[in-house]
């Protein structure tokens, strides 16, 4: 009898091991059901026509740019090329393209496609959003202005070799990894209905789009990564309403769901749901941006006092429900130039009062703070900081506007201060350039910040060819910025993706957690999707 019990136990352990191994071995087939949570529709399935995060959730499955973000190694990686050689002056980059990349219409991708795609983006009459990235290629600006038809910095060496000459010494990956620079097949685009029937070279090919509901894609068997993708079908379902998404997720109708602060608490507190939570510090820095040209925010002591007057940790814990990381600089933790040793501004209202007194404001001051309704970086946060600032004599007059209007106000410099979320990666140099004195307000210098020492650090970093040294200079610049307190450093967004137990291969992508790599995702047999 005892032998039988041991035998049964051994079999059970072996069985469990087999089951576990099966779940770890990617399974071919099945359907992935992801959600698009940021709007009630997709803007365009022509990736060059739309910079929206919502659209790239679909477009990343159908299309691909020259580079992609490598989440595992937290760096940019070549996607459509196997190698790149850079000239000594750092301006000319020669790419050896993959010779196994096929468009979904069966044609092989060549250097001509890269050149044609980048030239299309610079069509000045269209206002393609990716022009901001391609403009760094020599001669692209001339095409944009209509002064030339071809980009002089693009040269075809042979069918699978293309040479790209830049205007500045930059890391080209930061410019050529954006979805708006995806490589497209000319013959399909010129048919005229590309946004309705897109043809790309990604792991999934387009099958169906029900506007306002879903996009369905099928596995592309000639995808250039052997054995991938795993799933037969990928559905991206539009679900803009968080409460409805929650019901659908619990009802197992969707495989992934992005969580807001309230749901994050509920999911963490649930024994089952808490097993499927993916978290990452995204490259978004939330802050109150001061206009330094408006008194008294031109004074560094006032800005520092603001940072000391607020119990930021308390707000993150109580209001944001720990769905954020305390900001200790402008650059996010995923940046190579992020300095982990920097401590946040201490909550010290006595120090804040002292700094205000030193700045000639012993009785404090009053100012208008422009805000949107956003729950994580809008009115609820402003309502929380009002009494804290009041204790040191700073009176806040909130001004509520729509998010769309907030951007416009910031660009025109019509604010005294505003609270918002800012994209702060992955290009640390470009991100820090938003505080460069020569960067216009319309570009992103919404503070009007100007500091010669800071400018010099950025100039040196731009000229530095060695990545390590460059990151060191950027780290110094980021720390200088933290000390100068051009903003109230609030937090870095903690993006949270809930996932079902049968889905595997999801990645904590810090550039945007909803931008998954569908070729790496697979579902096991427990998935209820047909």
């Amino acid at each position, binding site marked *: 009898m005892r032998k039988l019990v041991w035998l049964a136990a051994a079999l059970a352990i072996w069985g469990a091991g087999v089951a576990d191994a099966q779940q770890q071995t990617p399974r071919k087939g099945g359907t992935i059901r992801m959600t698009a949570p*940021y*709007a*009630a*529709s997709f*803007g*365009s399935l*022509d990736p060059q*026509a739309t*910079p*929206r*995060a*919502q659209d790239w959730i679909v477009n990343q499955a159908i299309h691909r740019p020259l580079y992609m973000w490598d989440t595992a190694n937290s760096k940019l990686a070549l996607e459509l090329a196997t190698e790149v050689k850079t000239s000594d002056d750092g301006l000319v980059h020669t790419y050896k393209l993959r010779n196994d990349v096929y468009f979904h219409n069966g044609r092989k991708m060549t250097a001509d496609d890269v050149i044609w795609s980048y030239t299309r983006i610079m069509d*000045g*009459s*269209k*206002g*393609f*959003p990716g*022009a*901001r990235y391609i*403009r760094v290629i020599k001669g692209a600006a001339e095409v*944009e202005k209509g002064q030339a038809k071809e980009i002089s910095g693009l040269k075809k060496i042979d069918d699978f070799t293309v040479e790209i000459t830049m205007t500045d010494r930059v890391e080209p990956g930061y410019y050529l990894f954006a979805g708006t620079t995806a490589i497209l097949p000319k013959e399909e685009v010129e048919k005229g209905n590309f*946004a*309705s029937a897109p043809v790309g070279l990604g792991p999934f090919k387009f099958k169906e789009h*029900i*506007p*306002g*509901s*879903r996009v369905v894609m099928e596995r592309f068997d000639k995808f250039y990564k052997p054995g991938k993708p795993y799933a037969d079908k990928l559905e991206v*379902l*539009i*679900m*803009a*309403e968080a*409460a*409805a998404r929650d*019901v*659908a997720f*619990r*009802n197992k*109708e969707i495989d992934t769901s992005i969580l807001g602060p309230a749901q994050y608490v509920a999911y963490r507190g649930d024994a089952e749901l808490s097993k499927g939570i993916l978290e990452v510090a995204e490259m*978004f820095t939330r802050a109150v941006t001061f206009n330094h040209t408006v008194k008294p925010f031109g004074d560094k002591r006032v800005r520092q006092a603001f940072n000391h007057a607020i119990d930021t940790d308390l707000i993150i814990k109580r209001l944001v429900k720990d769905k954020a990381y305390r900001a200790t600089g402008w650059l996010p933790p995923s940046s190579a130039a992020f300095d982990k040793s920097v401590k946040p501004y201490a909550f010290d209202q006595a120090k804040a009062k002292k700094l205000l007194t030193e700045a000639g404001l012993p009785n404090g001051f009053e100012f208008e703070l422009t805000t949107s309704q*956003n729950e994580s*970086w809008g009115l609820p946060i402003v309502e929380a900081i009002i009494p804290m600032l009041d204790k040191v004599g700073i009176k806040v007059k909130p001004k509520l*506007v*729509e*998010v*769309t*209007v907030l*951007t*416009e106000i910031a*660009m025109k410099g019509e604010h005294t201060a505003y609270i*918002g*979320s*800012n*994209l702060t990666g992955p290009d640390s140099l470009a991100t820090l350039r938003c505080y460069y004195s020569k960067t*216009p307000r*319309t*570009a992103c210098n919404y503070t009007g910040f100007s500091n010669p020492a800071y400018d010099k650090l950025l100039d040196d970093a731009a000229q530095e060819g060695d990545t390590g040294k460059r990151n060191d200079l950027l780290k110094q610049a980021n720390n200088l910025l933290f000390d100068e307190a051009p903003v109230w450093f609030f937090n870095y967004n903690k993006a949270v993706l809930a996932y079902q137990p049968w889905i595997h291969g999801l990645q904590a992508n810090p550039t*945007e957690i909803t931008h998954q790599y569908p070729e790496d995702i697979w579902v096991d047999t427990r998935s209820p999707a047909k």
Partner: protein
Amino acid sequence: MLLVLTRRLANVIPTLVAVVALVFLLFSVLPGSFVSAMNEDGRTSIDPAVMERMRKEMGLDDPLPERFAKYLAHTAVGDLGISFRTREPVTKLIGARVWPSLKLVFVAMAFAISVGVTLGFFAALRPGSILDTVSMVFAISGLSLSQFWFGLMLMYLFALQLKWLPSFGYGDGGLTHVILPAVALGVGPMALLARTTRAAVLEILNADFVRTARSKGMSERRVVEWHVLRNALVLVITIVGLQFGSLMGAAVVVEKLFAWPGVGSLLVDSVFQRDIPTVQGCILLIVLFFLFINTLVDLAYVVIDPRIRHG
């Protein structure tokens, strides 16, 4: 009949022009633009040079009267312009949403009429009874319910707990996906119809001609069928017409909640992203639908009530 139709159509044109002008002006003075909306809650940064080119391409920098004149001229020939967001013709975008919207509105209205009129009718036949009390509590609750909350409760009960229906989406366009959004959308009109039908039937039941019919020995069933139902129908049709016409516009919340791909969800998205041509197109369609249904109601009056025909 033809006279009624001609008179109605003559009224439609100035209404349409007024709506078009109002929508155009409102969205011209509203702060924020499509280009600034591309910032997408801080998820995307925008290049000022690209912004400038986009504004130019979309004609956002042209003088307001010039833009309005162009818009009117194009609208008059059925060209609603190009969507800022998708760069596709607005007619194409709306065309893809019309059928799901109509499907939702028709099912919602079928639910509202079948449940609302039946409840109101039987409640009126037995005033003060338990049926009357229960149905009126039901009706008042239906009028006070928030569509959003009620929709969530339906999802929770019928999808999550009972597993009878899918909680969201369009699916393959079949009936199972439309039931929950249609009930959420139809509960308001259902409640209104129940109350209106009850009031109308009660009033007619106490009218002189009904008393006369009864005194002449007509059976109660024939009294109800011949006199009460026909006379109550005019009022019921008025409410049905008004509710039906406004339902497409009212579907905004339900469509967004249930991820239903109708005109309402397209409108919401387009407003937030300042896709003005699409907003204008959606509102124009909703107004047209309202006017069309009301014209049908006017014609129905003529058929049902000879006094209107001869008047």
